[in-house]
């Protein structure tokens, strides 16, 4: 059964500009799907519709059997089960690292402070940042902050994870430490949808690659097929551009 399913999703900015055109895609449980495409193609918008950070005007999104845009859906409850990692980390700068990791657990899941701390420390240890528990986000490097952001999503025990260009704002030498955490996560069987240009990551762990251009899903293919035999001219030209160096 599909964990995430988008059917004919459409979105407009204003009356005329259509950012998403009839997008349909499915992510099965345990699957890793990479979304790529030129900038402005609607990848980030698409992934944000899944936890309703972006509204849609047409189509349907179902996450774990729950219709996201149905009026009676409890959005906070749904979002708590869908982890999300942002391009610019978005850690809460006024809270310590541990407090960043405890906020959602205590306020949303209702865990006790002690239980939240145990969980937070475990996840922090997992991303290799236990030593920084008492620091503020501003005292960490970009790569460290993004690892904390991944931990902040994981402490909620999500059923799937969404990554919105998680390495685009990082200096090159910090990309690897974030990708390592993501690869490990993928290998453990986490359901993931990842907007990224890191084709190395896609090659290593993705099951499928979705290629978007101008608000449309142009290709949705198994990883091997996408890299070996891209069907569309647009995907071929995109791949040649980002793989040429």
């Amino acid at each position, binding site marked *: 059964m599909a964990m995430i399913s988008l059917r004919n999703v459409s979105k407009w900015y204003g009356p005329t500009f259509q950012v998403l055109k009839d997008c349909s895609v499915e992510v099965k449980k345990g699957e890793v799907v990479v979304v790529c495409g030129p900038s402005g193609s609607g990848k980030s918008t698409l992934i*944000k519709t899944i*936890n309703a*950070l972006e509204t849609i005007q047409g189509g349907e999104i179902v996450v774990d059997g729950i219709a996201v845009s149905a009026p009676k859906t409890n*959005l*906070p*409850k749904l*979002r*708590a*089960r*869908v*982890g*999300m990692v*942002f391009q*610019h980390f*978005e*850690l*809460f*700068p*006024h809270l310590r690292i541990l407090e960043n990791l405890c*906020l*959602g657990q205590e*306020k*949303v*899941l209702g865990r006790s402070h002690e239980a939240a701390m145990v969980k937070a420390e475990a996840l922090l240890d997992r991303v290799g940042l236990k030593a920084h528990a008492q620091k*503020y*986000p*501003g*005292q960490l490097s970009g790569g460290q902050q993004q690892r904390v952001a991944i931990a*902040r*999503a994981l402490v*909620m025990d999500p059923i799937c994870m969404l990554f919105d260009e998680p390495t685009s704002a990082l200096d090159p030498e910090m990309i690897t430490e974030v990708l390592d955490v993501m690869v490990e996560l993928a290998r453990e069987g986490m359901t993931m949808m990842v907007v990224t240009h890191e084709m190395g990551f896609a090659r290593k762990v993705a099951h499928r690659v979705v290629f978007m251009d101008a608000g449309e899903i142009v290709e949705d293919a198994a990883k091997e097929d996408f890299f070996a035999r891209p069907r569309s001219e647009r995907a071929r030209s995109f791949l040649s551009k980002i793989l040429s160096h």
Partner: protein
Amino acid sequence: MFSDFDFGVIWRALPYLFKEGMTFTLTLTAVATVGGVMLGTVIALLRLSSLPVLPKLAAGYVNVMRALPLVLVIFLFYFLMPYVGQWALRTSQPIQVGALSSTIITFTLFEAAYFAEIMRAGIQSIPHGQVAAGYAIGLTYRQVMSYVVLPQAFRNMLPVIFTQTIVLFQDTSLVYVLSITDFLGAASKVAQRDGRLTEMYLFAAAVYFLISFTASMLVKRLQARISIVR
């Protein structure tokens, strides 16, 4: 020139000036600041909300208050409050509102308009990504505001809030129009009783200057220390 002055007047009046006068001035400043920031935050949230009508009402309140001189508002509220109270509590007679409670309410309501604008700027200075991140971990609108946006907005705006408080501290002297004994009122009373106007007003000016200037120096220091590292 100073040979005719009697600075002993000040010395003898000190207990009265500070125990009565300054205590009231500082109390009014503190209450109006705390009340004004709380009410102002609510007004700012309403103004930024997507609710029907309320944003317009909040904006109207802020604009009206900021367009009126404080002295006028102090008078107006003093005369109107008994009737507003009568209407609100459905009593047969206009209710009794002392000059003291009237000033405290007036200053809080008046300052709220200014603090609302400060808090609005503070809230709008928080990047949208912070709000999105709050929602993404499952927080509700109310929780995003209380745990993510407002603490940061308040912290960013703290120097501006304190600067407004210093202005408020000076403005409290306007309560003289209701014959309330604040610091300046007390100085003025002693001055007229003893016929020592120049000495007392010079002394009052020195005290206001010393407190306001020291406070604004502290705010400057705070500003340097408080900025959040991103």
